[in-house]
Every structure is written in structure tokens, then in C-alpha cells.
């Protein structure tokens, strides 16, 4: 199937393939929605993670809180944001980390109207993509 949306820079469209790859990772993340699970995870992250048969790379990205890597490995933002929330990081601060801008510069950009669409439509407009 043609994936015309793969041309959008700096973006992962969470399609069925990514959903399949990220299934156990995402199910781990969403389990942290509940307070009792957050408490158990806090006690021993490794023991808790043993319940979820994710790949070595996914598990390492969780341990490292490597937010972009989590998305590259099939994570979806609505799931990974639960791990962030567990760490006390809200959506806006998480975006500050994922964009590499840092929390303050990102917030400043949003207050000034956000990231412009110009230059951000296609991978051909991004040098490093």
C-alpha cells in the first residue's frame, strides 16, 4: 500500500504497521494510566517491564526515556505521553524535548503562533530528513 503520508517531515503517522511493531511498548505505556501501576513501576522498573514482551531496543528506549526513539520504534504519542506523565512531564514539555528545542524555547514558539507550515510540508524541504 502506498504511504503518501511518509513524505511529511518530522512526523510518524501511527498506522497499522507501526501499531503492530509498537504493540507491547504501547500497552506498557498505557498501563501507567492507573495509579496502582505507576506505584509498582516506581518500585522496580525492570520487574515491571518484564511483563511486557517488547524488543530490547524498545525496552532500552523506555529505560533511557528516549522520547523520539520510542516513536521510531512504534510508540504513539498518546501512549508515550503516559510514561512522560508518570515522570511529571506534560504534553508541552514533552514536545520541547522531542523537538530538541528545550522546554522554554518551545513554549516561546507556541506563544508566538507555533511552528509555521512554510518549509515544513515535505521531507524535500528538510535537509536532515
Amino acid at each position, binding site marked *: 500500500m502506498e504511504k*503518501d*503520508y511518509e513524505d*511529511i*517531515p*518530522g*512526523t*510518524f*503517522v*501511527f*498506522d*497499522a504497521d507501526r*501499531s503492530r511493531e*509498537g*504493540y507491547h511498548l*504501547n*500497552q506498557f505505556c*498505557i498501563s*501507567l*494510566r*492507573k*495509579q496502582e501501576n*505507576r506505584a509498582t513501576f516506581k518500585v522496580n522498573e525492570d520487574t515491571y517491564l518484564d511483563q511486557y514482551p517488547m524488543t530490547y531496543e524498545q525496552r532500552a528506549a523506555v529505560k533511557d526515556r528516549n522520547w*523520539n526513539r520510542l*516513536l521510531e520504534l512504534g510508540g*504513539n*504519542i*498518546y*501512549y508515550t*505521553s*503516559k510514561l512522560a*506523565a*508518570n515522570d511529571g512531564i*506534560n*504534553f*508541552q514539555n*514533552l*514536545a520541547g524535548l*522531542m*523537538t*530538541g528545542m528545550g522546554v522554554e524555547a*518551545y513554549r516561546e*514558539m*507556541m*506563544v508566538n*503562533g*507555533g*511552528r*509555521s*507550515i512554510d518549509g*515544513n*510540508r*515535505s521531507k524535500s524541504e528538510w535537509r536532515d530528513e
Partner: protein
Amino acid sequence: MARITAGVGCSHVPAIGVAMDTGITDQPYWQPVFEGFKKSREWMKEQKADVVFLVYNDHCTAFDASCIPTFALGCAAEFKPADEGWGARPVPVVKNHQKLASHIAQSVILDEFDLTIMNEMEVDHGLTVPLSVMFGDVPEDGDWPALVIPLCVNVVQYPAPTGNRCYNLGKAIRRAIDSFDEDLNVVIFGTGGMSHQLQYKRAGLINAEWDARFMDMVVNDPIAASQIPHLEYLREAGSEGVEMVMWHVMRGALDEDVTEVHRHYHVPASNTAVGHIILENKA
């Protein structure tokens, strides 16, 4: 007979709920967001809606990755606000008009829209934030001023249903409500958007021009609006901007000609452009 008198389009940014719950709506950052809902709250009071039919998406709260229904209709007696990872919002339990919900399920499925029926479901900010912005503060132990029928649409895993499908589902919901034999005033909400991207290196994308054009089209040329392809939302309005397909359900349930009575747009609320519109049927 039951009738749909008006539609509301509205963002459902979680941070708006947090701002209300923590009492910081007067702060300079939030004041312009809420200023635009002042008129809406007065309008909402005047409407005296018996039922709000609320189209929203669940953000991996009631549904984790194990089950992803495209359209799920809330048929339970009530819906508790969920803990989304930072504690449940201190707002009232949402109560359904269960008889109307069952009637809609039956009518719409025979109309060939294969809904999933939810007899137990928690609701997240996608549903409670629009209620809060439209009704204002309601104490946790109080009651929302209207009964609420939730319709959950998958917009998390690609592909969301097409705009065309959403628009036609709106028409089927209209037929169902029109054929319900109880005198009820129903207001339909289509929620989500406007432009926003929460993830990865393009996070923070806002496209105000596109958003304005989208709202114009929804009001004046809803069929053309319903034909916008997913790629355009994803590219022009950000990966999470595809939520706006849910506005077409609302628009499909209204008359072809409507009166726009209010519009509000503000950037930002957290990562998102806030968009809001109120449309009334002319009859």
C-alpha cells in the same frame, strides 16, 4: 419529537481542563482562550438543551491498543471521568439519555453504520473539556446541565474514518434523533483540533490560515469540507489535526443551511490552536 437544533465545533485540549480545574483561567496565557467562550456559555444556557450528543475521540483511555473501534456509541447509564495518568478531573459523572442512545444505536446500525456499543466506558478529556468550556464550572458533586450521549471516533490509529463517512454518519444520527418519540432538544458537538502536532520533530505545527478555511467550509460548503483527504489534514494541520474529521459528524447532523452565531479562534493552548464555532439550524 426529538430534534437537533444546533451544532457546536470545539477543541478539547486537555490543558484547558487543567486550567479550569486549577483556577488559573484569568492568567494572561489563558484569559484569551476563555474570553471566546463567554458568549458560548450564555448561548448554552439559553438553549436549555435536554441532551448533548457529543462526538469526540478517546485518547487511549477507555480503549488501549487491544481494541480500536472506529465508531463506539456510549449506551451505559453513566460515564465516569477517567484517570488519564494525572488523576481524574474533578467534574461530575456524565449521565446518559439511555433510551435515546439505544434508539440511535438501533436506527443507525439498520442505516448501515456498524457502531460498537459501549455499555461500560470511562470518558477522558476529549469529552469532559468541551462540556466544561460550554457549561462553565460545575462542581464535582453537582450535575452537568444536560444528559450526554458520547460517540467515540478512532482518530489515534491511522486511518480515521473519512470525512465523507463522518458526514454521512451525522445524517444517519439526524434521522435517528428525528424519529425518536419524545420531545427533546438535542445539541450536537463535534470536537477536536484545530491544527496541532504533538509528536516528534515537527511538534508545535500551527496553520491558522488552513484552520480558518476549514471553518468557513464547514459552515458554507460542508460537502466539499467532508471530501478533504486525510493527507491534507496530516500535512497541513499536523498529525493530530486529523481529529477535525469529527466536526463533519456534527455538520452532517445539521441542515444544509445554517446560521453561524459565534466563532472563536486562538493560538495557543499548550500545543494546539483552539477553534470553536456555534451553528444553528434555521428552522
